[in-house]
């Protein structure tokens, strides 16, 4: 498979009055051509900051203290601002969470959609607008030609997000980063936008990085999943591996805390406590204070990634050969059962 993005050992600090906040703590991952990678985590876990680094959109008080971000082999952290401008909106494009604020209210839709084409290509305005119509139709804006001179406020929330997507894909980017693109939308519109993204992916052959905290959405769109906590990736694997054979207690907690439509318990499962303060990250496993399965070593030493399969890794000491067997939560047992039924041969040993 063709590797398009390779992030290696990335670490980012933010300077604040209280001292440096270690927002990203040595994150490595990759993205292959044409796949969809979902990054899951709570607010503050570092998922958006990681992606802003790939776009070169970090705030002024951020400093990259280690690592490289290789886009088709080139380290974008070494690029000049001019080179970054040539890359943004062309090789890598981004869709933001709020379609109400990511469009310019004073500019017509036609101009906004055609803008990236005009910026990155030697093309006439007329040809650019023609391509804008084609792209708007591709994302499901009906009768696009007659709406080119309309302004954002004349469209509904779902339509606006479609327009934002049109702007992002008009240059056929190699990577499309979607940062919570459906969080602000209603559930029926959300389903339409997800369907649209999947459909576009096959049409323009782009790789998608999908940032979200909604595991339901992830299950529907991702090929691979990464779970982030306190500035680190703590588990990653193929979508089935993470949903049906999860290994990290934080992943367990997230899956348990989601009420499904079948849930009929007296109490919801809640992960106790709150995420750690990244001004002073805890020694050992950052999740340990909230983890009912934490062992002595979790408070002393950070767990390395243990392989579960060639594609599935989790950073938890529970996977160490000497770790005691723990009684996993019911919901996780149920999921492991589905996994075992799908992989009977592997279950034999």
């Amino acid at each position, binding site marked *: 498979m063709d590797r398009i993005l390779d992030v290696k050992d990335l670490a980012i600090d933010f300077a604040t009055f209280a001292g440096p906040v270690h927002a990203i703590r040595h994150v490595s991952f990759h993205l292959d051509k044409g796949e969809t990678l979902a990054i899951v985590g709570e*607010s503050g876990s570092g998922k958006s900051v990681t992606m802003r680094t790939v776009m070169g959109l970090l705030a002024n008080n951020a400093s990259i203290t280690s690592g490289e971000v290789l886009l088709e082999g080139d380290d974008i952290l070494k690029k000049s601002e001019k080179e970054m401008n040539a890359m943004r909106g062309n090789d890598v494009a981004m869709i933001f969470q709020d379609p109400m604020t990511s469009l310019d209210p004073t500019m017509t839709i036609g101009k906004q959609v055609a803008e990236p084409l005009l910026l990155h290509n030697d093309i006439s305005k007329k040809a650019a607008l023609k391509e804008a119509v084609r792209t708007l139709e591709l994302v499901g804006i009906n009768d696009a030609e007659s709406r080119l001179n309309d302004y954002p406020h004349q469209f509904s929330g779902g339509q606006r997000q479609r327009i934002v997507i049109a702007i992002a894909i008009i240059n056929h980017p190699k990577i499309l980063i979607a940062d919570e693109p459906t969080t602000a939308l209603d559930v*029926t519109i959300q389903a339409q936008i997800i369907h649209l993204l999947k459909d576009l992916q096959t049409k323009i052959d782009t790789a998608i990085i999908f940032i979200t905290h909604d595991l339901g959405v992830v299950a529907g769109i991702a090929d691979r999943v990464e779970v982030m906590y306190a500035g680190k990736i703590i588990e990653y694997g193929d979508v089935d591996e993470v949903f049906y054979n999860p290994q990290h207690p934080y992943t367990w907690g997230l899956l348990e805390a989601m009420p499904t439509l079948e849930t009929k318990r007296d109490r919801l499962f809640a992960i106790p406590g709150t995420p750690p303060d990244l001004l002073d990250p805890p020694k050992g496993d950052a999740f340990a204070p909230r983890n009912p399965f934490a062992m002595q070593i979790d408070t002393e030493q950070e767990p390395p990634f243990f392989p579960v399969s060639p594609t599935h890794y989790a950073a938890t000491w529970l996977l160490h050969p000497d770790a005691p067997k723990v009684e996993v939560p019911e919901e996780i047992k149920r999921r492991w059962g589905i996994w075992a039924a799908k992989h009977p041969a592997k279950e034999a040993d």
Partner: protein
Amino acid sequence: MTDKKKVLVQVKDLVQTFNAGKKNEVKAIQDVTFDIYEGETLGLVGESGSGKTTTGRAIIRLYDPTSGEVLFEGKDIAKLKNGSKEMLDFRRQTQMIFQDPYASLNPRMKVKDIIAEGLDIHHLVNSEKERDDRVAELLEEVGLNADHSTRYPHEFSGGQRQRIGIARALAVEPKFIIADEPISALDVSIQAQVVNLMKDIQDKQGLTYLFIAHDLSMVKYISDRIAVMHYGKIVELASSDEVYNHPLHPYTESLLSAIPEPDPDTERLRVPIPYDAAKVEDDRPRKMVEVYPGHFVFAAEDEIQGYKDAAAKAHAND
């Protein structure tokens, strides 16, 4: 739902129109009718713009209704005079928890003053000491440390702020709480904490909730009954199991078919049912009809039999 339950809030043919008679007139809610029983949680779901929040605000009389009435313990709240003793009493008995824990707490007030504001207004405490004790008690009730009372809102996380908002609502010992999207601004792991807290408090104090939300799986979990809103009207109302297992109105069916679940196999097979508004939202007169015991659907005269048959058929398979 047992029939013996006492009705706490009665909403009858409520209409709320903004900018009435002007060019930009908006009929936010139309002919909304439902009851809320004492001690229950009624979930109100629907997409943005469907009128959920307007309904909640009309019930607590933040608006004067255009027509129709809202009865709280049998009394028409639209007839209460501002500043009257009855109005003050109504304001004490109904409280609200808001969506945004950042915007709903005054950043320049200490936590103890935020929580005790209602106590002061309603003269529920007689001394500074009694006030501090009550605040400490409330903070502990919502799972916060009593020592936090002299801090300011910015020192707390989103989940903690929402707990402060809950403590403020509880301070005046209300009977009825309207929670307008109380968890949608919170992270998944924190949402469960806040929902559990609301349930615990309800069990302890016998509170009645109107829980407004668009996250349907959470609503199903917390609600006894659910009302589904669309375009300013309630289209379906039944017990939460009934709504989820046997939805009858096409809009409810469409809404339920779109909820993503954390299960890749289910998601691969998911086919959302599109909603064709033309079929059930023409100009014919419609009203809420009980098509199965406790199950109401917004239907025109000739649609009733179809819904009744569908309900009977669904229950035959139980």
